[in-house]
């Protein structure tokens, strides 16, 4: 039985029209594919801002805390004076704090991106066509079987080069 429809587009304005059409017809669950991020699509969909930044913030804070802590704790763990400097000397330790902040912050950012965009998912290719990484834009519409006709119509009249059933 049918899950949804995959439509491939050659032109971006056709894609935008298709998005508009689907929106007008109150289709909720559809995914847009594009070989490269286009602002036109953003404007058409105006999606919420990504949550990645939270991961960055938390990661960064953990990093800077750990950086300072490891430096200060180890200094006091076995106090040895060098060059007549204070044993736990926070000024140079700022460098450690900073570097660890960047490290952990960056890694957690990437981690956040993976979580939010559900990758890695190596095997699942439902609702995807290999042309979408090439030259074609695409839309995958998921809907109840009875509305498939309506969706197909919307996609075709906006100029889809091809509409296929995904099962």
């Amino acid at each position, binding site marked *: 039985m049918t899950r949804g429809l995959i439509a491939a587009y050659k032109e971006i304005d056709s894609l935008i029209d298709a998005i508009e059409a689907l929106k007008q017809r109150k289709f909720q669950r559809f995914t847009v594919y594009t070989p490269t991020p286009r602002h036109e699509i953003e404007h058409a969909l105006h999606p919420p801002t990504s949550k990645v930044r939270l991961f960055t913030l938390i990661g960064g804070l953990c990093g800077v805390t750990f950086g300072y802590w490891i430096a200060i704790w180890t200094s*006091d763990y076995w*106090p*040895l*004076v*060098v*060059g*007549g*400097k*204070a*044993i*736990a*000397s926070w*000024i140079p330790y700022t460098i450690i704090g900073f570097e660890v902040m960047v490290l952990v912050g960056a890694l957690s950012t990437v981690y956040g991106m993976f979580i939010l965009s559900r990758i890695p998912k190596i095997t699942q290719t439902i609702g995807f066509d290999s042309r979408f990484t090439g030259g074609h834009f695409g839309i995958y519409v998921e809907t109840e079987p009875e509305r498939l006709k309506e969706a197909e119509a919307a996609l075709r009249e906006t100029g889809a080069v091809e509409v296929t059933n995904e099962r």
Partner: protein
Amino acid sequence: MSQPPKTVVKRREFLKVLGTTGAAATAVGCSMERVEQLIPYVVSPDHTVPGVSTDYATVCRECSAACGVIAEVRDGRAIKLEGNVDHPVNHGALCARGQAALQGLYNPDRYRGPMMRKDNRLQPATWDEVLARVRQGIDEARAANAASGVRFLSHHENGSFGAFVDQWMSAGGFGAHLAFDPEADLAARAANQAEYGSAWPALDFTAARLIVSIGADFLDGWGASVAHQLSFADARAKLGDAPRFVFIGARRSLTGLNADEWLACRPGSELAIANALLGAVGGGGNTTIAQAATASGVPEALLQRVADELRSTKPSLVLGGVSTPDAHLVAQAAARINKAAGNVGVTVKPDEGLAGLGGAAGAPALADLATAMNAGTVRVLFLRGTNPVHDLPKAMQFAEGLAKVPLKVSFSSYPDETSELCDVVLPDNHALESWGDSEPVRGTLGLQQPVMDPVFNTRATADVMLAMARADNAMSSRFPWATYRDFIASRYPSGRAAFAQALAKGLGQGTALARAASAAALPTTAQAIAGDGEFFLVVHPSPALGAGAGANKPWLQELPDPVSKIAWQSWIEIHPSTAARLGVQAGDNLTVTTAAGSLTAPAYVYLGIQPDTVAVALGQGHTAYGRYAQGIGVNAVDALGASFDGAGRLAWTQAKARVAKAGDRTRLVTVEGSARQHGRGIARAITAAQFAAGEMGEEEPHAFIGDASHEFLPGLRSPVANDAQGALGDTTSKSKGMYAQDHWSGMANRRWAMTIDLARCTGCSACVTACYAENNIPTVGARWQGRSLRPFHSADGAGWDNAPGANILKGREMAWMRIERYFEGGEDGSADFETRFLPMLCQHCGNAPCESVCPVFATYHAPDGLNVQVYNRCVGTRYCSNACPYKVRYFNWHGYGEVERRQYAFPEPLNLQLNPDVTVRGKGVMEKCSFCVQRIRDAEHRAKAENRDVQPDEFTTACAQACPSRAITFGDAAHEEWAVAKQVEDRRAYHVFEELNTYTAVVYLKKVNHPAAGGTR
């Protein structure tokens, strides 16, 4: 040491086993996995507790002064020599040559046993074989009625040995015995004998107000250097009241560099000057100042001023010690000046004189011997401790004569040029392995006892001779003694029991019956300096190598010459103006040609020499004598003919020479970067006048914005100088751990520190060698230790840079302590320049720049003020050395401590000398002066064991202990009772680069200069 257990482990072998651990003890890695076997003593020798040192008092035989030494013996092997504090000559000090005696003892090239010439090659033999051969030779001589053709040539030794040999020879009806010492200043001895009635009067520099030395290098090899240096330094330590010192000579030796004024005179003109001065003090003399001035090239006014000074200043001390053919006359004139100036008994003390210096044979006697040998009348020749083939000019034809002697018996312990020509070698024990006695000063006996069993299969010559005597019907009756020890003991005035007691201190009362020196009248004439060529050739003994005996000891080879700072090399000293005239750069090879022969060596451009003079040092140019001596430099004697002074000493300064560029170059193996301070105030001085006037003398020249306070005492009173954030200074700070004054360990209550008095320091470098000995510092200059130049090289070393000192050319010397020699003035090449010696070692800064940059805490600041280097933690980033303003950190560029590396610095059995208390550093780690932390810990252990605190000045560092100038003081600057704590408050005290805010623990005391009236330096 996976070496199988011996069925019967002899003590000596056991020592070797131990030795290998010593060498394996590198910081590179722990070797817990290795299965080892410990071979203990079966029956522990007396007083020997494993791991605990025993001290034995004995006598140093490295020069004729016969200083008293204490040998530190650990597990049956001598690991360190220190001066005997009670000894009347050296009072506890010890020179570099004395320190290096250990490397003679453990020299890897010593004969391991008796040798005999078979198919024209010296090959190992048994004692029975060689003794039989010797007996056979003697019998043949007797059979041929030529017993008198049996001769004995020995190194002149202070003590009974000479008498013993004489007795032995006469008992056997053999010919005369000659005792020879190439370094002995026979001229001075003879003149002294004639004028004072004592071969070597005691010289009291402290009593003098003016010292005039006419070529007498009393600090480097002339007579008993250590005794002179002690007295000289004490005199200089009188600061404002110290005597002024004028040096007269063609070349500024180490002694000359310590003079306040140098009269650069033509070689051979010293006699004229001496006579002129003699006249000036009203002692007769047949030369006027004007004549002397023209003869010597010294400006008349200058000479006149010195003469007036000598007349007006009382008491004074005049010394004559030139090496020209008229040396005896110069010495005589000097002695007469002292008489006329009333110095005898004041600064010159004949009755307290050094004894035992008399009785050495002159070179003419050796010439006669050589003639006899060439004539074939010598049947058997015994040689002991002397190396005439190297030390005597070719013209004397000693080697040729030797070839004509049927049986040549050498007692030499080393394969030197002479013993290599002999038929039989009966290797002698080293002085530290044998019995003996000496008479350093009249009435006092210095007792020499073996401090350990022989390293090799050697026997004491005296014992061998006793054995031979007992086996000989003719002689046995006159030699009742079983061993030489009995012989010595039997002669000990107050009997054997007293003798045994005296051994403990190494000193006793009595006389060693040194043969009375012949007080023959001195000839009143002398040869002139002969030869054509526009230059005078001055040949002088090397302060470290002497006439050559020291050349097989890597410590002495590695020790930069105190004057030229060149090591592992021969060089020709030439004046800048002359060099410019001949277009000679430093390092250009020069060929010096005299009638007798020629020398080729790199030029060293030296301010302290006459423009019409070139100088070469003795000691190098060995063709045998072991791996460290062979193939290095030239033998200066090759340029000398058979010309002697009136007392029979070979005249080292005897010829004129032609000097030509050889065309090629040899890089000078020098440790000198720049010989000028560039106004950086590193070695500072103050004139006596300023000092008297209470001025400060030279100050730190730069005071730029951000310059730190010059108040450095706080840095010395507390172990750690306060840091920028003040946490260490803040008494309430909690995070100070063991650095808190009230910490339970109490470590932070001490601040180890050192003062170095530049007024005393003479730059003799004894401290440097003492440091090598104490701290297992590797020598890196040997020919095979050079770095590889090609990626592929064969095992035999082909493809390696085999130039001596290749590592030092790259600045890789490891001396934790170095003596920097800075010149002041004389940029125009004039003789009016001053020299400042500055011992530079780790300054143990309170705010050490090296510490904070180390990523792994391998160097850090200990609570007791030490700047610690932890070898086994070091990863070798060398960042600390970059940060160090004093450049006193040294890196192990090669595996000097790894047996399997060709750079291995302690070839067996040299490794037996390694100090078990100090880690042998491995490849790739940084090292530096530790303030002898092992001695600090040892003192703390002792104190703890005796349940007390470390007493003030209870111990000191190796350098301070050895210093014959007593210039170095070590101790705890945080406690007033320690000497160093008082020293740092001296008005002359300063820190090097104090504006860097390093709060160093090494404080220098400014040198005090005594310029001539109106002079500045």
